[in-house]
């Protein structure tokens, strides 16, 4: 029982980061209908850039963090303008393939610049000291992670709900043509979506980088996002958050209880088994929009 609760708590921490990255992913899909296979590489780049500012240049963490945010926004805008805008109206296969190719390029660039060795934030940003809540033991860095993840989730939820830009983004997601005729610049909204997608991924990367250190395996986060968004429904940002948390907890539990029987690494694939099951049973997820086909 104690172990079970412990697993749920640590699962929720990683799940909150999944939720953050999944939100960026769902946002991009919702407003631009592009399935972003390079989401994990955004996580990777964010983590490495922040690490470089912080440990490499020795800037204070707040400044390094802000600079990383600026960098991510810039990267999102540039990628959208150069690579993804020409893809509007192209068949799905081209769009999918271009984000995969983009992921390949980003990942190899990162490997060329920073190598494959695992790197850590030095000195550590948050302390690793363990705190005890009853029988549950949580390290301080975990609490910071989940706190920051929820802070960003809350900020962006409020952003979509109340700000002018957020409302225009929802309008574009709902109907591009109508939004455009109402004077909303669809192109601008696309660029904003990509930059927010890159930004939240970078935050996720920095948070996880604090826990596990950074190497190119971090890009795997982008793939774990798929089960999360499929569970929540591709079009739903709220669903992505719930999906992220659920997948985080599920993979932790399945990983620790099934590893004995299936031999190591179950944690890595259990989200995908869940994904296949969801697709077979409830393909549009919890809050997705069921496609109705009219002839």
């Amino acid at each position, binding site marked *: 029982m104690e172990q079970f609760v412990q697993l749920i708590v640590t699962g929720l921490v990683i799940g909150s980061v999944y939720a953050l990255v999944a939100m960026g992913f769902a946002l991009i899909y919702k407003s631009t209908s592009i399935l972003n296979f390079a989401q994990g590489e955004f996580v990777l780049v964010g983590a490495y850039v922040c690490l470089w500012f912080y440990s490499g240049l020795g800037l204070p963490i707040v400044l390094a963090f802000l600079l990383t945010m600026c960098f991510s926004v810039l990267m999102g805008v540039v990628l959208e303008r150069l690579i993804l805008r020409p893809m509007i109206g192209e068949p799905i*296969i081209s769009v999918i*393939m271009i984000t*995969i*190719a983009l992921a390949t*390029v980003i990942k*190899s660039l990162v490997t*060329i610049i920073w190598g494959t060795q695992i790197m850590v934030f030095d000195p550590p940003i948050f302390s690793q000291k363990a705190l005890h809540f009853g029988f549950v033991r949580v390290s301080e860095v975990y609490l910071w992670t989940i706190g920051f993840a929820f802070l960003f989730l809350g900020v962006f939820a409020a952003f979509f709900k109340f700000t002018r830009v957020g409302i225009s983004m929802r309008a574009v997601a709902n109907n591009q043509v109508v939004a455009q005729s109402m004077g909303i610049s669809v192109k601008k909204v696309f660029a904003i979506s990509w930059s927010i997608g890159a930004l939240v991924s970078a935050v996720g990367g920095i948070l996880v980088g604090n826990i596990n250190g950074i190497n190119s395996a971090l890009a795997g986060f982008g793939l774990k996002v798929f089960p999360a968004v499929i569970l929540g429904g591709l079009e739903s940002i709220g669903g992505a958050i719930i999906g992220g948390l659920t997948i985080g907890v599920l993979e932790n539990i399945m990983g620790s209880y099934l590893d004995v029987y299936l*031999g190591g690494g179950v944690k890595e694939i259990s989200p*995908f088994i869940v994904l296949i099951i969801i697709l077979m049973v409830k393909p549009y997820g919890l809050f997705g929009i069921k496609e109705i086909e009219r*002839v």
Partner: protein
Amino acid sequence: MPCGLFFSRYEKDDAIFQTTWLKVWMALLFVFLLTFPLYADQANGLLGLNLTNMMNLIFIYIVGAHGLNLLTGYTGQISLGHGAFMGVGAYTAGILANLGWPFYLALPAAGLMAAAVGMVFGLPSLRLRGLYLAIATMAAQFILDYAMRNWEGLTGGSAGLIVPSADLQGLGIDFTFDSDRSFYYLALVFAVLATLYLKNLTRTRTGRAFVAVRDRYLAAEVIGVNLFKYRIMSFGISSFMVGIAGGLWAFYITIISDEHFTMWLSVQYLAMIIVGGLGHVLGGIFGAIFFVVLPELLRLPAEALTDIYPSIFGIFASLREMVFGLIVILFLVFEPDGLAARWHTVRAYWKLWPFSY
């Protein structure tokens, strides 16, 4: 002189080789391919490459790329799992060969096994389209990849599985396909068969049904094309072909491990048919040639540069991946129809030159 193709009968329009000149060129190409190993050695010396080895890889990839092109290019179903399906074929062939099966039985069995697995993971294709299917097949890739790595009793795990070379002992002929040159002919046979099969399939009722499913699946269903049947069939045939490619790979390389059949291979297959040309028979061929020749072409300047920058070899793998990604991006942005379309334009241009209007 005619300045185009004008067919007066349907049979003519339907023919595989539509003109006499095409037949002549094809015959010349065939003769060239048959005699290729004879002058490959001299060329090897000149270029510093192993051309026969490259051709063998090209042939194997052609079989697989045709398979994926049938599914993605003709039926419009996206698969990110073909790398793993190829692995299923390779392991089936390897395990059966180790049990003493001759290669001419193990190879079809490899295809059938891959087809069965492909059809199971293709089942969601009835309810899901496009994006969702890509995600489902991606999940299949990861699950199969995991099984290949961790089911050590069956696959040998990460240590790999040693496969005997293909031989004809079972037929009473003492011959083993254990050299590049002998395997060349085996691979050539399968590449030619796969190409002819794909070319032929597009002329049949089934092939037309595939294209109908791709273009307007609702309309296709309304005029009586059974969507479920043709989608699953497409998955089956496609995985069968890629399974055969996997079997050939196993018999050629003779040691297989899970490292080869990752997501990266699936992505490479997709890149092959995109760069080659989706929905063109030539697409798989051009794509396979492109992606076997490209790393070799990159290797030569990298080797030349090692004297100046000794560190370049350390990052060569990453550099190669980057070039690969950039090429796919450039193709998608500037030439979405691939090399096959470019080939047709160039040919049409020279046919009418200098009066191109």
